[in-house]
């Protein structure tokens, strides 16, 4: 077997933007609008499942409704649908455009790998691990599944090291360190790959995302305390407004100074709004929402670029997450207001 299996599963033709982008736009027009979410919010879980089964999620709901019921059915269906959609997207993107799409999809690889490693680290069973995998990503899903079958934590890392993107891994390190490294390398590699397009919207989006990750983690560290050697592990380089030095000084500022300085960035107003709250829950939710809204706004662009595709990738993800928030929230009896506020519409 070819060891570097990455993206070899796809035979991609040339990118035909007029085809790709009209198709993606048509796909995008099939996504739910805000009034549908209002309806969903007023439905019971099984009603939601039925409703989804009457629209775009028909195939998944019908095939999975023999195995699952209720909220499980919904979550499995939407994940399956998301995977299917992304796969379709890559197949129709062609060589040039799929480079970007893959860059986004690699996140699911990272998720899957981290899940496998966590499971192996704490010696969970194969079924337990498989339950946490999502069949989306640049790596073929069969490879991820084969990782589950490998015996130990170190062996899995050794196997991963044979793949080019993961050669930096070190099997002697602990799970938390490996997780951080995977994350940091993901962003580092993408920023390197697209170095030439430093001003492009895509890179801007990624760098905004890095900022948001960093801010979230700084807030967490400020709240829960941190060790100096941990500090560096928890920050990602390459943010749009905040670099590492900025971040580590921010980490140590007293509250007033912190607020004053953060207000100079676009994230300031969000942080200020949630400053007094006891939990970071809603702050994180708002930051996430901000990022998604940014992407939705920014990725509307030239029809002869990758932007419509990226826009769709994000929009589809948002839709799936919205549905999940509604159905899960309904299942665990959250107030409609809380669910509604967390939706990205």
């Amino acid at each position: 077997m070819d060891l570097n299996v990455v993206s070899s599963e796809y035979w991609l033709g040339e990118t035909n933007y007029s085809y790709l982008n009209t198709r993606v736009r048509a796909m995008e027009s099939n996504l739910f609008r805000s009034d549908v979410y209002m309806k969903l919010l007023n439905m019971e879980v099984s009603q939601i499942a039925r409703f989804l089964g009457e629209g775009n999620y028909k195939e998944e709901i019908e095939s999975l409704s023999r195995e699952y019921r209720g909220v499980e059915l919904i979550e499995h269906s939407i994940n399956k649908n998301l995977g299917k959609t992304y796969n379709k997207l890559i197949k129709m993107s062609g060589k040039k455009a799929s480079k970007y799409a893959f860059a986004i999809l690699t996140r699911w690889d990272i998720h899957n790998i981290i899940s496998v490693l966590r499971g192996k680290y704490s010696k969970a069973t194969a079924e337990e691990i498989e339950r946490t995998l999502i069949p989306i990503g640049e790596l073929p899903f069969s490879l991820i599944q084969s990782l589950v079958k490998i015996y130990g934590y170190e062996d899995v890392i050794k196997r991963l090291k044979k793949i080019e993107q993961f050669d930096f891994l070190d099997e002697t390190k602990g799970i938390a360190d490996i997780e951080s490294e995977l994350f940091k390398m993901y962003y580092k590699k993408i920023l390197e790959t697209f170095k030439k397009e430093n001003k492009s919207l895509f890179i801007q989006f990624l760098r905004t995302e890095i900022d948001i990750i960093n801010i979230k983690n700084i807030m967490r560290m400020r709240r829960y305390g941190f060790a100096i050697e941990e500090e560096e592990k928890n920050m990602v380089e390459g943010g749009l407004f905040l670099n590492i030095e900025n971040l580590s000084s921010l980490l140590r500022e007293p509250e007033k100074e912190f607020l004053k300085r953060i207000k100079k960035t676009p994230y300031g107003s969000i942080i200020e709004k949630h400053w007094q709250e006891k939990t970071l829950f809603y702050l994180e939710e708002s930051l996430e929402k901000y990022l998604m809204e940014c992407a939705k706004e920014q990725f509307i662009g030239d029809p002869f670029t990758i932007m419509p595709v990226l826009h769709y990738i994000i929009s589809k993800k948002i839709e799936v997450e919205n549905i999940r928030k509604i159905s899960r929230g309904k299942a665990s009896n959250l107030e409609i207001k809380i669910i509604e506020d967390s939706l990205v519409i």
Partner: protein
Amino acid sequence: MSSNERMTKITLVGTKDIMKGTIEILHSLKIIHIIDFKEQDETFEIGKSLGEVSIFSELLLSIRSILSKFDIRPDKVKTIYIKREVSRELEKEVYETENTIKMYSEKIEKISSILKEIDRIKSIGEITEIGIEKKLISSIDTLLSSKSRLEKQRDKLREEMDSIIKEKSAYLLQYEDFLSSEIEKMEAPLRFTTTKNTFIVEGWIPENKFQELKNILKKKFGDRVNLDKIKYSDEEPVPVEFKHPTPVKPFELLLELFEYPKTREIDPTFAIFITFPLFYGIMLGDIGYGLVIFFASLFMKTKFKTEGWKMILGILEYSSLYTIAFGFIDGEFFGFDIFALLGIEEIFGFKMPILNRIVDFMPIMVLSISIGVLHVLLGLTFGFINVYRSHNLKEAILKKGAWIILIFSIIFIASSVYISNIFLYFGSGLLLISLILLVVGEGFIGLIEIFGIMSNILSYVRLMAIGLSSVGIAIVINSIVTDIVFPKGGIFVLLGYSILILGHIGNILLGILASFLHALRLHYVEFFTKFYEGGGIKYKPFGI
């Protein structure tokens, strides 16, 4: 011209205790096109579903998964079922059916996987040579020999399962139908606006049904419900229900593909009914092709019975009649000059063929452009009426009248060469008036539009050009066969016939598509732009 059903926008306000009853009534009447609730605020919020919608949904999910897995569709099931009311018993029956089917399919799957394993063992080949113990070999042999038994068992299970499915499918379909419509009723409040104690339904109903609905509601609920007509803006999409005579009906499809007309707009279906087949016939114009298309569409009508297919085939049928008629004028039969072949030179004193498309392309071009002028004029006239109806006469003259005058002026000027000089002066005068009107109406930018309308009219040249290419291909096929293939004799005669058949089938398909598309394009791009805005929606009454 028939006028379509006039719609009127209504609001229905009632107290919440009669919401269920109201929904029942609306559902059974099947006249209201509900406008879904959109914006939510403190006082007005979206309604909540009624009743046991959760249980019903669960049931429906189960049924639909069975229906989809075994591909049960209404057209496949012949048995007639009696309508039964929903009850706990039925609910139990659905789950029981689901479980039985699940059990059967699990068993079948298991046997299949065992069979697969047996096949794998078999494919390893002769095992006696590796030196395995005799006992083991014999046990493997018995395993292998059990294959046919297992297969039989699997087939039996499959048969049993199929018979269960067959027995239940009618009932499942009926139940699905029933549940869907129940759920539609239960979920209707999701489309309503509600306040604390009341609910509001917004929607459209045919104007002549308004009083009827009002009476029914008053009789049943008295003062607890109030039905009112409300005003609506011009921008709002109004549902349209066509009321065309049957022959015109298929042409509604062409509007459906484009956009439905607004209420105050002229409905162009009738005009399309006349011009579309005409254009189609001019372009294709061949007796043979026309006959093939006519009979093919008659035949296909018996096979494809969906609404869309019926309409398309209907359009083709009309168009093929025109094709045959123009075939007589052009004297074409599968590309052959039929009158020359039959030796007919004159019919009723007309020289036959009246127009030979290859030779007389100039007259046809002039004819095409004239048709274009007339068609565009028709469009502009419709536009004039539309603007007059929605605004006023002045606006109509400035926006559309100016163009009409412009076109007439050009006609006069052009025809002056053949008739008399007075036409030239008269035409020039008209031209001047129209130009002034244009500048007043739309400014100097309006003058640039003149090129647009010119190219619109020239675009009708395609009536000639598409026909020319179609007949060109037909002639090429024919001459290849008659001049090159047939003279060689022998087996080549057979080859010649097959070339003829395949070639003409290809050309017919191409002709159907090209003529259809270009006729359509002439309507959408050249004709509709002169008057048609669209923006109506399809009338979908609640309950259907």
